[in-house]
């Protein structure tokens, strides 16, 4: 046994798969211990906030500032005006502002901004300009005015009775704060999803549920498959025919269709993690049965089995001591594949809205489903779906890699 395990870990493929899987597994265990927020809490008030650290604007405004000798106004202008903006400004100035092309230097943002402020008027007739563009110029004008403002931002307190404003602080453009001083902040490494939930925390929690579903479904499917396969293979005759008849029935009907039908008829409220795992497990056993059966058939006429039979051992004992050990490695490999396909099945089910309930658990498929419903893939909100895809890929990749590694160790035909 020890030797076998040693051999298994010598296989490069198995090792890589195992390490990837182990890292995911450890993350799933330790991340929730460190980050204790509810993975389903709707933190962000809006759709798909981009990854980053969000600091409290109120605290930042009230924090004691540091003065830095940085020419902030030109930096602000540079940041506010892109090359496209500048050329759009040039076009407007020539066409509607009555400025000569020779007077415009597109490369100098400062001068452009001054020229713009001198000539731009949103109320002037702009024939031939589409509404979207007019609105764009209004926004651009606001941006330039804000960037050029040198008086600073005034913070005022409102008198509760009279409603009069009294100035309490002015934020100058040379005022900076150290982000480390801000205590009120929240980091979303992978942004938020369409409900405003923290994607990373949700992703880990979803991976846990997916692994649970995968393991339970894999266990159930392997158990059923193994039991029926052993029975059919060892007994032969009528039991074999009957079991194979049923198995063939299930093989012919695509299991995903059965999966959909059962999940649909169970109804939303009953579909928890366990139920989904059970349904997946109950629909994916046929191929395990078939392959276990064929392995058993090749084993049952071997000499040691016949000897056991002659010795009058019971059927159970023969199966457990003379047959099972020979196919154990195969069964483990089959189970790994079942786990992997269980995770994929869950993702597929949740994608079409037949998975567990959104408010009760996070699953990988549900995350994909909502990202798609709110068209994250069209809006460039990659953080809402890409990490999920990667996670699903990594899990099934690592499991399959482990399976191939095991195969190489146990299958004499594949040994180098």
């Amino acid at each position: 046994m020890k030797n076998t395990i040693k051999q298994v870990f010598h296989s490069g493929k198995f090792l890589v798969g195992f390490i990837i899987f182990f890292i995911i597994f450890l993350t799933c265990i330790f991340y929730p211990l460190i980050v204790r927020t509810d993975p389903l809490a709707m933190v962000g008030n809006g759709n798909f906030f981009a990854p980053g650290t969000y600091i409290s604007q109120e605290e930042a405004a009230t924090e004691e500032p540091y003065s830095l000798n940085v020419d902030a106004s030109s930096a602000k202008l540079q940041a506010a005006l892109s090359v496209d903006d500048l050329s759009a400004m040039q076009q407007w100035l020539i066409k509607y502002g009555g400025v000569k092309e020779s007077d415009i230097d597109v490369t100098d943002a400062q001068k452009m901004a001054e020229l713009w402020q001198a000539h731009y008027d949103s109320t002037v007739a702009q024939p031939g300009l589409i509404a979207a563009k007019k609105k764009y110029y209004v926004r651009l004008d606001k941006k330039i005015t804000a960037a050029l403002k040198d008086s600073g931002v005034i913070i005022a307190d409102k008198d509760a009775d009279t409603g009069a404003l009294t100035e309490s602080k002015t934020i100058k453009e040379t005022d900076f704060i150290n982000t480390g001083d801000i205590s009120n902040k929240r980091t979303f490494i992978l942004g938020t999803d369409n409900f405003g939930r923290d994607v990373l925390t949700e992703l880990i929690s979803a991976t846990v549920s997916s692994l649970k579903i995968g393991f339970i479904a894999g266990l159930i499917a392997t158990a059923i498959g193994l039991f029926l396969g052993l029975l059919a293979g060892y007994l032969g005759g009528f039991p074999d025919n009957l079991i194979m008849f049923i198995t063939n029935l299930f093989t012919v009907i695509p299991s995903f269709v059965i999966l959909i039908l059962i999940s649909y008829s169970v109804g939303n409220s009953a579909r928890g993690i366990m139920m989904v795992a059970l349904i997946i497990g109950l629909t994916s056993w046929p191929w395990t049965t078939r392959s276990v059966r064929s392995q058993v058939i090749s084993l049952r006429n071997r000499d040691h089995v016949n000897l056991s039979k002659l010795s009058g051992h019971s059927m159970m004992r023969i199966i457990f001591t003379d047959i099972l050990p020979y196919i154990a490695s195969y069964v483990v490999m089959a189970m790994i594949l079942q786990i992997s396909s269980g995770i994929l099945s869950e993702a597929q089910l949740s994608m079409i809205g037949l998975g567990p309930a959104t408010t009760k658990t996070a699953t990988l498929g549900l995350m994909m489903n909502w990202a798609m419903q709110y068209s994250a893939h069209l809006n460039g909100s990659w953080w809402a779906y890409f990490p999920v895809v990667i996670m699903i890929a990594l899990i099934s990749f690592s499991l399959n890699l482990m399976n191939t590694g095991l195969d190489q160790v146990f299958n004499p035909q594949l040994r180098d």
Partner: protein
Amino acid sequence: MKRRTEKLMSILMISAITVSMMAGCGSSTSGTTASSSDSAASTAGASETAASTDSASAAASTDTADADSTPRNETLYFAGQQWGTVNDYNPMSANSNNAMVINQTDYARVLVYETLYMFNPLDGSMKGLLATGDPEWNADKTEMTVKLNPDAKWSDGTQVTADDVKYTFDSHVKYQSSTGTDYSNYIDSVEAKDATTVVFKAKLDDKGKAVNPLKVSDYLPKVYVMQKAYLQTVEKRNNNDADKIKQDPMKDLVASGPYKPYVDNDQKIVLQRDDNYWGQASSMWGKLPVPKYIAHVIYKDNAAGQVALQQGEVDVCQEFLTDVQDMWEKDNLPISTWLDDAPYGLCTLMPTAFFNTKKAGLDNVTVRKAIAMAVDYDQIIASAMSGQSPTFDKYPRSIMGPLDSEQALVDQSALKDLQWKSGDVEGAKKLLDDAGIKDTDGDGIREIDGKNLSYKAECPNGWSDWNAALEIVAAAGKNIGIDITTYFPEASTYYDDMTTGNFDICMWSSPGASVSNPWSRAMFFLSSKYADLKVNWSGNFGGYKNADAEKLLEAIPNETDQAKLKEDYTDLSKILLTDVPCFALMYRPGEFYTVNESVWTNYPQSDDGRNIPPMDCTDGYGIAALYDLQLVNQ
């Protein structure tokens, strides 16, 4: 040796897959760009069977594309209205899916068929279309006279007469179309006084007063006028069989509108301008609408429509788009909406969650109110609606929608004490605790009489903003110890559940702005009349009953004193907020309106002073936009 063949095989396989994928991509685009289909077919030659079917379909689509294609700069493209092959052009049909032609709502789509008046939700006014001048009531409000525009003509050149209006109404009633069954409760008959004068006689109650004059006016901007002669042809070819008449596809229709059917298939529906349209008369528009064709490509889903909009293949898009502002703020596309900032559109509707007041637990006002209080509306508006709704802080809950004209009819200060703030979980918990509704068996869910409070909140599958809103309702339930699970069946199953009261919590949209609103919205929320209907499409799906509310609802249609109206609506709002038979989850635009100015420009904008509503250039007075459109490159 074996290894080598394996490697060779895998390389072959991969190249075969790549080639077939490329071929697949090529032929799928060939539907839209005919020129690429040839090259795609030749690439597909790699795999025999796929190639033959592909090239066959490509050839077929090339043929139809050539025959049907309309010049881009003469065609206005739509998205988000038509989702399947058009089945008929019949305004009396019960199951017409023809969204581009038939839409008899508060602001009817008047591209092909026309109504007597056009409604403008911006100021609540009606403008004459087939009619001219305002409708006039007689002194005791039992008869309404409408004058037809003498210039109005059918597409076959004959005059639109009062007889046509009469015959249309009579047909609706005779063949029991949904319009007919609804309005025959309020309109006794339509008479043709002379060729251009129509008299609507209201149904009278036992006191000799009109049952509901509001519903009579409501008919005018909503129901299409059909030609008597054509209707008679249809009746004749269907042997006067009511069911057959209602199912007649009417592809050879005679209508009065500026467009006529041109092409419809499983790819698109196209309407062509009728250059003899009567509206060129100076008494109406004085000109023809600008686009020669109106086209709607049938997209697979919202996402496909959104991509087409972003690429400039669609001009007017009636779809809910997540973070719509990103299209112009981040992607710099020539796309805009009615308003530049949130809520972006003209919100008139109130998608509302109804409690089934006949279910144990939900018959308890405290439970209903607690759920309504715990819901995080700000979250619904910011995430489920993507900011495309004003908040309940700005327009507090009442019978009224978020239009200033409607808000003027309610006294918000009187309702202040009844309002609840968004996501008030603690308040809701306290309410339940005080009422003795507690969790006694420690499973985290409260009970009444030992029974867990456990409910299903349902709405149709795939209506993403509604689905998300109900998820947030479910989350609220979790926070206060009431188990709410969401349930999203297919639309048809949902309709059965909703209309027959087979639900715990369901969701439906209130009527928007119209001639008969806010009255019909108050009916929708509160009317006991709807409570016992066997099949209820009208409102109050939860079977709530309140005699006081009913009295007010009956009095309002005949009330003309604005102060009294305001008082009544405020009282109704009080009942709504006290008894919570239903609660609005958000405000929503009557129609989403996002336009791309790649080809066409001069669409209605909120600040252009033209008073044209953002009704997708097709509905009610929104159609006025079609007459002002301009090409960008001209």
